[in-house]
């Protein structure tokens, strides 16, 4: 049996879903769109086991966004794989009138409906205010008071859902006399017996996306489409008139405690000055936690994978290609994926707490006007700021932006924000041309100032590009923007936990595949070379090591340096040399640019390897950094370092970001667009920077 939960956003639908299914959940994606498909199992392992589907939140059966469209498709199309046998309409007890709008639409659809009046714990003596029995009689469907938070009413609800529910609901909307003929025609066209479904098709044929286009076009000819909004408004008025009758035995509860608390808290949280200060403090706290706490598991993961690689190397035949492939290709690729998990988990921990408590909509409220000129709404603020930590979870967060164009713009510019992976590159490169100089009377350091400048530059560029994209896409950010600011409440930790789990899982299993493929390709480029140059180098160094075994270590490093230079990556680096010449780069930097496509921080490792140092050059390590900077400084003028710095500030040097963009846009086209525009931007900016630097330095 399939049971679907539907209801308004903020009605506690997901909490109820969690309460009914426990941890038996999985999350996927609806094909072709970026809408989560949440499935769970209720009464697992018992004869009453049933599949539960948590549909995206909707206010009515007239969709306004991509996820609402999915929910409506499932409800309207009896052949959809998620079309359920029982529909549980989840209502917010404190917003009963509004919740019944959707409920009466569902009963008009003549589907088996159960009404779950959720969050009754928010109303003291809820029985006094809501007359559940009379409401059930008037709606002619089962009505169950529940609280997902206190778990009251969950068992009675489960019991009702054990056996099929009859189609019994009161029908509210009558088809006007003059329309009956055309409605009959549409019923034939879309193959339904239901008047109301045909009426929906009559007034909004273009939202019937599940039907073939030919059918849709036939419906459009019958439809008064120019007046569809007026007809929807009229329908809603009819419904609300009837709902007021349904609720005449119930009283509107007096202002709840949560409501009073919200009014008070908003005096603080959206205060014209205090509000911004609090927002800034919360951001600082999150970043502080991210950098100080997430750092430990990240180092742990790197250590575990390092040891694992050593272990595999020791049990496999020495120097065999297979062992090389497993450890440096596959294992390193997996490590590169897993290392993101702490950052993703931590960021989503904070973000879901902010969402759960209702604070997020206050951020939107505070930032909306400021962001609007750039094609953003307040919703884009969090993904953009998150980009300063890591673009990967930030792009995943953009899912909460309802407008598809705004979401796309946000995703496309987020990688311009300077993320934490750029830091080692920045540290290495600023050391090359910025003197170690105290400024502001010893308060700061010139290097720090340059670093800050880079962050600001990334942010300004993100706004600039967003503004251009907005113009290019002809996106007008002036649509109606009316939204609910939910009452403040304590976070429900189970919801927080499931969000973290779902996001991490989605990243590992859906994005991970792409990342693994790219890293194996990059490994292949580094590990193979044209002709038999590799074997020549092998024999040459084997001979040398045999002659002077005491120099074995340094000879091995020289060997890997020479091998890298003659690998395909090396050949490619040399091939692109004429292309990157204008930026001041030679083929050695070319190799580093290519290999650091995996992740920006790989740049330091590759440069180290070219100079015959170990590949695991650590920028944090004073001595190693000094050696590397000295070697680079010997060969390149400061202008090159400056040009590289600008290049890395803008370039799309991160395969994980690319992979997650593919997942979140659902399109290779936009992913390619992102890669190309960022590369061109980086190239252009680095060119200008190099020319200027040549004049100045």
């Amino acid at each position: 049996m399939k049971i679907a939960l539907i209801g308004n956003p903020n009605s506690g639908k997901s909490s109820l879903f969690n309460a009914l299914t426990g941890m038996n959940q999985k999350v996927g994606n609806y094909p072709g769109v970026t809408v989560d498909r949440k499935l769970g199992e209720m009464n697992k392992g018992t004869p009453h086991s049933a599949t539960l589907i948590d549909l995206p939140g909707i206010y009515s059966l007239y969709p306004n966004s991509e996820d609402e469209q999915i929910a409506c498709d499932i409800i309207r199309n009896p052949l959809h794989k998620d079309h359920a046998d029982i529909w549980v309409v989840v209502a917010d007890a404190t917003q009963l009138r509004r919740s019944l709008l959707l409920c009466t639409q569902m009963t008009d659809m003549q589907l088996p409906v159960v009404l779950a009046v959720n969050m009754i714990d928010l109303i003291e003596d809820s029985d006094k205010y809501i007359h559940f029995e009379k409401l059930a009689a008037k709606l002619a469907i089962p009505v169950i008071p529940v609280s997902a938070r206190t778990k009251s009413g969950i068992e009675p609800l489960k019991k009702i859902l054990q056996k099929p529910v009859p189609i019994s609901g009161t029908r509210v909307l009558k088809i006007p006399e003059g329309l009956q003929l055309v409605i009959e025609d549409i019923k034939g066209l879309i193959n339904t017996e239901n008047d109301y479904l045909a009426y929906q098709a009559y007034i909004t044929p273009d939202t019937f996306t599940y039907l073939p286009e030919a059918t849709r076009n036939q419906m459009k000819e019958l439809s008064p489409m120019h007046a569809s909004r007026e007809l929807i408004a009229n329908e809603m008025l009819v419904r609300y008139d009837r709902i007021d009758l349904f609720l005449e035995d119930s009283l509107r509860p007096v202002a709840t405690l949560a409501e009073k608390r919200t009014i008070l808290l908003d005096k603080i949280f959206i205060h014209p000055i205090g509000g911004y200060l609090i927002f800034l403090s919360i951001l600082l706290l999150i970043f502080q936690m991210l950098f100080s706490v997430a750092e430990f598991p990240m180092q742990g993961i790197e250590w575990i994978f390092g040891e694992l690689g050593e272990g595999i190397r020791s049990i496999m035949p020495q120097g065999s290609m297979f062992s090389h492939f497993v450890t440096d290709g596959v294992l390193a690729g997996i490590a590169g994926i897993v290392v993101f998990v702490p950052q993703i988990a931590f960021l989503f921990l904070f973000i879901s707490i902010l969402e759960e408590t209702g604070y997020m909509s206050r951020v939107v409220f505070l930032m909306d006007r400021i962001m609007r000129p750039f094609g953003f709404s307040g919703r884009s603020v969090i993904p953009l700021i998150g980009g300063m930590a890591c673009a990967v979870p930030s792009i995943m967060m953009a899912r909460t932006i309802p407008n598809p164009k705004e979401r796309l713009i946000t995703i496309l510019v987020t990688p311009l924000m300077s993320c934490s992976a750029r830091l080692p590159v920045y540290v290495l490169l600023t050391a090359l041309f910025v003197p170690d100089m105290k400024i502001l009377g010893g308060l700061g350091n010139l290097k720090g100032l340059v670093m800050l400048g880079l962050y600001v530059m990334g942010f300004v560029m993100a706004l600039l590009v967003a503004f251009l994209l907005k113009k290019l896409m002809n996106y007008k950010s002036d649509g109606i923007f009316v939204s609910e600011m939910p009452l403040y409440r304590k976070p429900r930790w189970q919801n927080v936990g499931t969000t973290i789990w779902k996001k991490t899982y989605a990243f590992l299993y859906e994005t991970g595949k792409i990342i693994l493929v790219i890293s194996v390709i990059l490994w292949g480029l580094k590990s193979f070379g044209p002709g038999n140059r590799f074997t020549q180098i092998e024999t040459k160094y084997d001979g040398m090591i045999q002659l002077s075994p005491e120099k074995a270590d340094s000879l091995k490093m020289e060997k890997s340096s020479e091998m890298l230079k003659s690998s395909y990556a090396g050949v490619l680096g040399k091939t692109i040399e004429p292309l990157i010449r204008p930026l001041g780069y030679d083929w050695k930097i070319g190799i580093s640019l290519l290999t650091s496509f995996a992740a920006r921080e790989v740049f330091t490792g590759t440069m180290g390897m070219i100079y015959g140092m170990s590949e695991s050059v650590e920028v944090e390590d004073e001595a190693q950094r000094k050696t590397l900077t000295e070697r680079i400084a010997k060969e390149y003028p400061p202008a090159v370092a400056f040009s590289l710095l600008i290049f890395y500030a803008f370039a799309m040097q991160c395969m994980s970001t690319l992979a997650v963009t593919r997942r979140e846009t659902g399109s290779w086209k936009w992913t390619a667009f992102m890669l190309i525009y960022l590369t061109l931007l980086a190239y252009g900016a680095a060119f200008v920077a190099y020319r200027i630097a040549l004049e100045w330095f």
Partner: protein
Amino acid sequence: MKKRKLSVLKIGETATISTVETAEMQVALMNLGVLEGDTCRLSDIAPLGDPMAILVNGTKISLRKKDAEKVWVTP
């Protein structure tokens, strides 16, 4: 009775929604359970004067200034 636009209300002022100009706006408000005849109170105005938030039927709703200009209230 004298009609005003919702957008001219001051913080803390209470009024009754009398008419909503466009069907689109009407539907957007009705989705959130806000109907003509409901009483609302302007509770917050963001810095820069936009957006604004109203308390209505026990919930808080934020709307942009240009949308609030489509809503007429009495008194």
